[in-house]
């Protein structure tokens, strides 16, 4: 072990799991290839390879996380003295574990591929591997007998590989690689049932919308690379793609403000597309055309989180580029705030349970973006962590309902209701996750969402704090409505055991087991299908409920990973995930290009000077020459129960009001029709009397919420569907029309016309000269000699 005083500690070993974390995405990538080529020949049609690779990744990720925790603990024991002076809040600097191999080169400079492992990367690695594993296990049952079972698992595995390789990317190019691979897989998975052109269109829309945002990613990467490259090469010996290099450059004070701003804006545009932020969120609800496990994976831990992750990954660029510490409004926070409200309002008017969840995801991503935009980095990352569990659980529960409860329908109003009794496990897990999402103490969402709201206010973004609180109210309300419609009240449609014929054709989720093009039917298929066709709603099999239970229990306890209300000893997330803003000597973290096989930065020395005041650390001062820092000193709000109780009250109000409203609105009509009042006149009278007080609220809600909020939501939906979507569609139509016009008139007429004209001219000349070709040899001879004679004459004249 090296002493803290040693100036170079590059040889420090970080432990096997940390040094070989690059294997985490390799496993599923290899599994993908195997499934594609050999999957159909395997006994479980390739799904076993997918699941096994995800379990392998999970083991590796957990091992790495464990070693990371040890490493941070070691660092705390080691440094103590010199590094703590960077400020009261500062944790000791723990360098990321970076390995890079040469991937490509240009102009003699080599660029790498490899791994960059730190707390943020590990958080995501563990979450992604974990959720992917559960989703794959769930899919074993959910897609049983699907005609493209093998393809599905291949794509799902590649999807995880893409996300994992993006998460541990040490440079922007690898990040783009993972980013785009996910785009491809989302295309394949959303369009999984491509026989229906609507699904194919949804897949295209998802890919295309995200691709529009990717323009920003390409441009932003370019801007940052060329602006930072000289500095990073000189000071750190890495290229301008390198993530720690970019971070250090952004914090160095030498960076050009305009480059930072343009780079940050461009990158954020990519995040808007990927993370479904306003106004590019329209693809997300359409993406529900894919199978439910896909939605679950897409919306909880991969794909849409990628945008948030990108902002969190190169946070210093955004921190400086958007001037996050110095303003009370900026681009990121604004977009995040708008998204929270817009999406939450939309969730009220959906009939499709998955669309409610989709808008909910959009809204929650808005929270994360708002948090990042307002300087609450840790809270936002923590919200990624907790949100992954309960959102995955919600989607899987919705899938479970459609699988076993509503005969493959997702329509809450038509085919659900009263399922709580029939599907107790699904209902329990759903309710736990709903409460977690709404932010009820002490479930996961409370700790993360409340912390975002709290810190947003603390950092001077008061207006956005109010937006966040409104969002919390709306979240609670729409989730209560969805819960009520699905699990309580009267059973309707399929949930009541009826079968609508149109379900067979209406819903993409239908498993067409008679399809001759599909795989050979295996025994389970026909049997399993009949099973739930003949009986009414029932609980799902274990392969579905076990993942649900695991996720729900995590939704219960995940919040305690960073439970700010219980004091700083509970803030483990802060300790292990948040990078240190300390100044360190540049040469002690100096990298040596990707040619070098391994580079593990140990405990670097603290830079001389930089005596600690309370507000010292990056972003408040610029590092001295020879020093760098990799992360801004973000401040943290101190938890106060008064604030916590306020937000809890808001959440409770949302839950209760929406719940009561739902009962009145959805079930009361039925009661009148069926005439339940006759059960007991006294009880009923008292009940109604009690309710009379509430009648004010209900009437209020009926006339305010229904007459104001619902129209607004509807208008937003209309705006969404017609204006924003309309613009997207219209621009597509217009560009096609322009393209057609350009092709017909300019290409075919002008450009090609010029070519053809020159051809015609040559032909005309030929036509004119044709009579000379008489075919008579004598005439040719005459011409020849005449020409020679004239030539000779001319020669004579010229020479004389």
């Amino acid at each position, binding site marked *: 072990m090296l002493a803290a005083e040693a100036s170079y500690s590059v040889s420090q070993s970080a432990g096997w799991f940390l040094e070989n974390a690059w294997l985490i995405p390799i496993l599923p990538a290899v599994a993908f290839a195997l499934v594609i080529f050999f999957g159909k020949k395997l006994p479980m049609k390739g799904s076993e390879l997918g699941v096994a690779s995800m379990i392998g990744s999970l083991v590796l990720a957990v091992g790495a996380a464990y070693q990371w925790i040890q490493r941070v603990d070691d660092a705390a024991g080691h440094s103590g003295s010199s590094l703590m002076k960077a400020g009261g809040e500062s944790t000791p600097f723990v360098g990321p574990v970076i390995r890079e191999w040469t*991937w490509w*080169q240009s102009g003699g400079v080599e660029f790498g591929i490899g791994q960059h492992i730190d707390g943020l990367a590990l958080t995501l690695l563990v979450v992604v591997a974990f959720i992917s594993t559960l989703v794959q296990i769930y899919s074993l049952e959910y897609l049983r007998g699907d005609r493209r079972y093998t393809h599905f698992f291949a794509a799902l595995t590649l999807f995880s590989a893409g996300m994992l390789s993006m998460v541990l990317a040490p440079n922007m190019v690898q990040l783009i690689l993972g980013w785009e691979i996910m785009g491809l897989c989302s295309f394949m998975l959303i369009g999984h049932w491509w026989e229906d052109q609507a699904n194919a269109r949804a897949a295209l829309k998802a890919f295309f919308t995200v691709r529009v945002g990717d323009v920003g990613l390409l441009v932003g990467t370019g801007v940052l690379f060329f602006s930072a490259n000289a500095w990073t090469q000189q000071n750190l010996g890495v290229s301008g793609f390198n993530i720690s290099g970019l971070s250090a450059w952004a914090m160095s004070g030498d960076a050009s403000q305009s480059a930072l701003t343009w780079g940050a804006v461009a990158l954020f545009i990519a995040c808007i597309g990927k993370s479904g932020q306003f106004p590019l969120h329209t693809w997300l609800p359409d993406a529900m055309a894919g199978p439910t496990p896909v939605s679950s994976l897409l919306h909880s831990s991969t794909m849409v989180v990628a945008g948030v992750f990108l902002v969190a990954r190169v946070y210093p660029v955004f921190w400086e580029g958007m001037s996050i510490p110095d303003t009370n409004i900026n681009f990121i926070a604004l977009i995040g705030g708008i998204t929270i409200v817009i999406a939450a309002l939309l969730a009220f008017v959906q009939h499709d349970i998955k669309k409610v969840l989709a808008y909910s995801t959009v809204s929650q991503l808005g929270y994360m973006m708002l948090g990042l935009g307002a300087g609450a980095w840790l809270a936002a990352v923590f919200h990624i962590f907790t949100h992954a569990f309960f959102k995955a659980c919600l989607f899987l529960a919705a899938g479970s309902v459609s699988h076993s409860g509503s005969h493959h329908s997702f329509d809450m109003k038509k085919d659900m209701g009263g399922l709580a009794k029939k599907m107790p496990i699904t209902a329990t897990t759903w309710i736990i996750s709903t409460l977690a999402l709404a932010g009820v103490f002490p479930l996961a969402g409370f700790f993360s969402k409340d912390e975002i709201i709290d810190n947003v206010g603390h950092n001077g973004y008061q207006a956005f704090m109010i937006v966040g609180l409104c969002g919390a109210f709306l979240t609670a309300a729409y989730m209560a409505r969805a819960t009520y419609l699905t699990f309580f009240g009267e059973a309707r449609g399929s949930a009541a055991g009826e079968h609508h014929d149109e379900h067979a054709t209406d819903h993409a989720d239908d498993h067409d087991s008679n399809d001759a093009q599909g795989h050979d039917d295996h025994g389970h298929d026909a049997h399993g299908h009949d099973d739930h066709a003949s009986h009414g709603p029932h609980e799902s099999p274990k392969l579905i409920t076990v993942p649900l239970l695991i996720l729900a229990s995590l939704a219960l306890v995940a919040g305690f990973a960073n439970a700010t209300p219980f004091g700083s000893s509970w803030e483990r997330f802060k300790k292990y995930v948040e990078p240190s803003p300390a100044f360190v000597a540049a040469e002690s973290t100096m990298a040596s290009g990707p040619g070098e096989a391994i580079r593990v930065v140990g405990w670097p020395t603290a830079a001389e000077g930089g005596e600690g005041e309370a507000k010292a650390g990056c972003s408040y001062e610029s590092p001295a020459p020879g020093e760098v820092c990799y992360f801004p000193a973000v401040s943290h709000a101190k938890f106060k129960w008064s604030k916590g109780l306020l937000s809890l009250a808001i959440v409770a109000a949302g839950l209760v009001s929406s719940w009561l409203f739902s009962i009145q609105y959805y079930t009361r009509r039925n009661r009148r029709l069926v005439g339940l009042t006759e059960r007991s006149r006294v009880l009923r009278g008292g009940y109604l009397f009690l309710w009379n007080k509430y009648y004010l609220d209900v009437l209020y809600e009926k006339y305010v919420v229904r007459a104001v909020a619902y129209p607004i939501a509807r208008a937003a939906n209309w705006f969404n569907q017609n204006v924003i979507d309309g613009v997207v569609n219209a621009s597509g139509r217009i560009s096609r029309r322009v393209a057609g016009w350009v092709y017909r008139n300019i290409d075919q007429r002008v450009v090609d016309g010029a070519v053809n004209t020159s051809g015609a001219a040559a032909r005309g000349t030929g036509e004119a000269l044709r009579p000379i070709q008489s075919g008579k040899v004598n005439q040719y001879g005459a011409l020849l000699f005449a020409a020679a004679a004239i030539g000779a004459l001319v020669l004579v004249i010229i020479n004389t």
Partner: protein
Amino acid sequence: MEVLRDQNWLLTVGTFLPMVGVLVMLFIPKADEELHKLVALATAVATLGVGIYTLTQFDFDQAGTLQFFADTEWIKVISSNYTIGLDGMSLPLYILSMVVTVLVMIYSWDHIPSPGNPKAFLSLMLILQTGMAGTFIAQDLILFFVFFEVVLLPMYFMIGVWGGEQRQYASLKFFLYTMFGSALMLVAFIALFFKVRGALPEGVEASFSIPMLTEYGGLLGRSAQIWIFAGMFIGFAVKVPMFPFHTWLPDAHTQAPTQGSVILAAVLLKLGTYGFVRIAIPTLPEAAKEWAPWIGLLAVIGIIYGAFGCLAQTDMKRLIAFSSVAHMGFVMLGISTLTPMGFNAALFGMVAHGLITGMLFFVAGSVKERYHTLEISRLGGMLKQMPKLGWILGFSAMASLGLPGLAGFWGEFPAILAAYSPADGLPVETFRTYMIIAAIGTVFAAAYLLWLFQRTSFGEPKPEFSGDGHGDGHGDDDLHDVNTYEWIAWTPFLIAIVVFGVYPQLMFQIFDPAVEVALSAFGG
């Protein structure tokens, strides 16, 4: 200039071996088709063998140096020599031309287009191979020009004899258009020779040698350079093809037989861009700087315009042809930045485009063979009828739109990046505008390729092809999935697209030193 002269017989053998095959085939009666196929394939494989041996003998540590260099008197009276050599810029293209020929031969085994006659068809292909390989090894302008023109004739006949409905028109257009460009190019070459001869220092002998001209080309005055560059520009730009010289391409591609389209896309288009990076820009640095913004402008117009062209097409093959205009736009944008990154991107883009678009044309050919139409609106549900062919189309489309992890990305992404920071002396703001336009072009690329894929492969098959027995004569027999010959011919393409996409360093490390040499006039 430093050169390596070891084993300098290799390139001559590799280039002219196909002609031996042609000679042998001359003496085999026309009716013996199997034997013709066998001889042609054996020749192509032997040529590739020589190519692979060349690859193993190539000194990768000195990829910037001309290797296997030979220099013999050829036409003394015009100071033209038989100068050949290979460096990192030409090696991948040289090998690519050989690989493509072999694979196309394999594909031809049971895909000789009507009106048959494998003897003529395969002989032409072998001659074509000599022309292509020769262009990439030539280090003498006249030699380059000769090979450049040798390529034209076989292609003309391939389109004109084995082509589609309008083959006469297309082949003539192709020939005349390219001839028009080469005429100006030749004038420019000659002018360059005489001008440089006038400016040479004492004791240096004038010749058409490219290394010599690269060394002394900078001595010319600016206006002379600009005019000479203009001539070369038109010659190469027609071949690339750049907007607005591209109109021969869709016709030629649409009418050419599948094999012709594949070779055209995979190798022939690269002759133009190769001309830029090998001849026009290194020999005339001043003019290159002057012209670069205009080249860049035409390149980005090509990117957007090609994409519009694609969106408007109703014919699958024509769409793929137009996509070449857009993709070569990225290549030219990379070249116009005059930076190592841009050049590397361009060279990578050439190889990647060759592989990917070649693959797309193969698929289009097989679709045509099965459905007897390429009308997009008539196709549909291909994934259902022929899942493998459908997925190969999807894969190629993804590669073509520049998905990272596949080869196309490494031509596109660094080219876009490079445009942010072009060489010293070029207008930075202009190029940054180009960068954004090119980045938007990638969105269009996604649009037209995926739209194509969605329309042809997703959904249910159209009733006329659903094969329920009483259609209009298209029995189920036609609609078979990928067959063995196709697999053999395609697999190397597919593997190469993935391998170069996952580990691009394989090619970048070959290009990069040579690119630095080529750009030495621009101060790195």
